């Protein structure tokens, strides 16, 4: 009896060859696209409002933009839970800052704070892809673009989220000079009049909505000028 057992045990039973165990991921991609374009005296920030997981739409109306003060906003794509947490942290830090300094935080300062906040969670990052946008101390449009763990740079325009592969080349084509090395030297960034910039952003979102399944429903557009933040809304296809 005992002799027979090892022989039987050496035969792998069906289904035991590949051991499978359930895995769980703390991350989910809830889709969406965010875009920001800086001008000489304005900044346009736009974000799609569809929130989804897999092939299902969770809601058609979820804002991805945090308005911190009249000169600075943060737009985030990625995972909704992390967006919400990050926005809450930044909002709280901004309130504290105002108690201490008796003024709203300037856009470049907020950009640095966002970077620090992201890097603080270097080994368990927020699954968010952010843009910080607004007006700088001289009143010029400012856009900062980030990776998930806080590397950032100031740019003339930026794009994050699911639709970035579709939108970024369009913005490059319209807003960037041929090459920074071209001779005679051309202006590195071309600045559009506000109406044309808004039109460009709307056009880019409509096109992204045609081809990216995670971009759709609505676009929330913020136009930041020295006087106020104006909001606009554009319908996209809902399929």
């Amino acid at each position, binding site marked *: 009896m005992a002799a027979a057992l090892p022989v039987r045990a050496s035969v792998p039973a069906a289904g035991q060859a590949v051991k499978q165990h359930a895995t769980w991921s703390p991350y989910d991609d809830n889709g969406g696209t965010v875009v920001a374009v800086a001008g000489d005296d304005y900044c346009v920030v736009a974000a799609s409002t569809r929130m*989804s997981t*897999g*092939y*299902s*739409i969770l809601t058609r109306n979820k804002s991805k933009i945090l308005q911190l003060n009249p000169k600075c906003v943060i737009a985030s794509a990625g995972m909704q839970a992390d967006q919400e947490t990050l926005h809450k942290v930044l909002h709280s830090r901004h309130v504290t800052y105002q108690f201490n300094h008796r003024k709203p935080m300037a856009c470049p300062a907020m950009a640095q704070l966002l970077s620090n906040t992201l890097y603080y969670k270097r080994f368990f990052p927020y699954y968010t892809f952010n843009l910080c946008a607004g007006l700088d101390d001289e009143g010029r449009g400012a856009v900062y673009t980030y990776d998930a763990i806080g590397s950032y740079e100031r740019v003339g325009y930026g794009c994050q989220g*699911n639709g970035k592969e*579709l939108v970024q080349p369009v913005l490059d084509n*319209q807003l960037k000079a041929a090459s920074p090395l071209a001779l005679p030297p051309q202006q590195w960034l071309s600045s559009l009049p506000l*109406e*044309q910039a808004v*039109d*460009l952003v*709307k*056009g880019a979102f*409509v096109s992204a909505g*045609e*081809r*990216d*399944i*995670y971009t759709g429903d609505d676009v929330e557009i913020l136009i930041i000028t020295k006087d106020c933040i104006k909001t606009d809304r*554009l*319908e*996209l*296809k*809902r*399929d």
Partner: protein
Amino acid sequence: METAQQGGFSFDLCKRNEFFAAKGVQHPGFTKTGTTIAGLIFKDGVVLGADTRSTAGSTVADKNCEKIHFIAPNIYCCGAGTAADTENVTGMVASQLELHRYATGTQSRVVTAMTLLKGHLFKYQGHVSAALVLGGVDFRGPHLFTVYPHGSTDSLPFATMGSGSLNAMAVFEAGFKDDMSREEAMALVARAIRSGVMNDLGSGSNVDLCIITKDGVEYLRNHEYLQTKTYERQFPQKFASGSVPVVRERVYDIRRAVQVVEGEPMEMEVS
């Protein structure tokens, strides 16, 4: 070395591919049609419906593709799954049935199409990923089947398939009645597909319908055209003529190389 004469796929490179995959090499994906397809039996026949979006990952590969395939003059088939598989498997069965009609001189039967499909899909053990809704009318009346990639089939009065199948089935379960009129049936199928188009990200764009009765087929391509662009550019980018420099120009006169010969029409043997 003699090789066996056999049809079908070659699996020679499967081991190699598994080895590469284990080393971390990413394989190219293929166009999967995240899809809503549906069909139901009504008083005089069958209505089939499909959306028209084809996706590759999260991008839309085709905004207006055709997912209702021809099988026989009295049989059509909606396909979900890998686009190449659904197109080829329906094409193969359509060709086999056409030859069978030449041999027997009788109308094709829906069960024959179903049996050919399930036999093929079962042979490939689910590797040919075609999920189908097959419908048609033959001398025994209307028939509707679902065919799964592994080769199982169901005969049903109403059926849905694809990533939007749950959305569409919810509409059917709420609204299906026996012996509906043609108009009722078309409206219900269109509504089922529309619920997939609006609520399932894998499905989108337009609604195709195909109505099969004993008197004939009505294929309504883009029966419902759901949404157009929501915004027209106010400052559209216009490229002036000459924006692209002409580097080189060469003109060929093809008349020197081509000879046109007029001929008599040939007699064709009929009967």
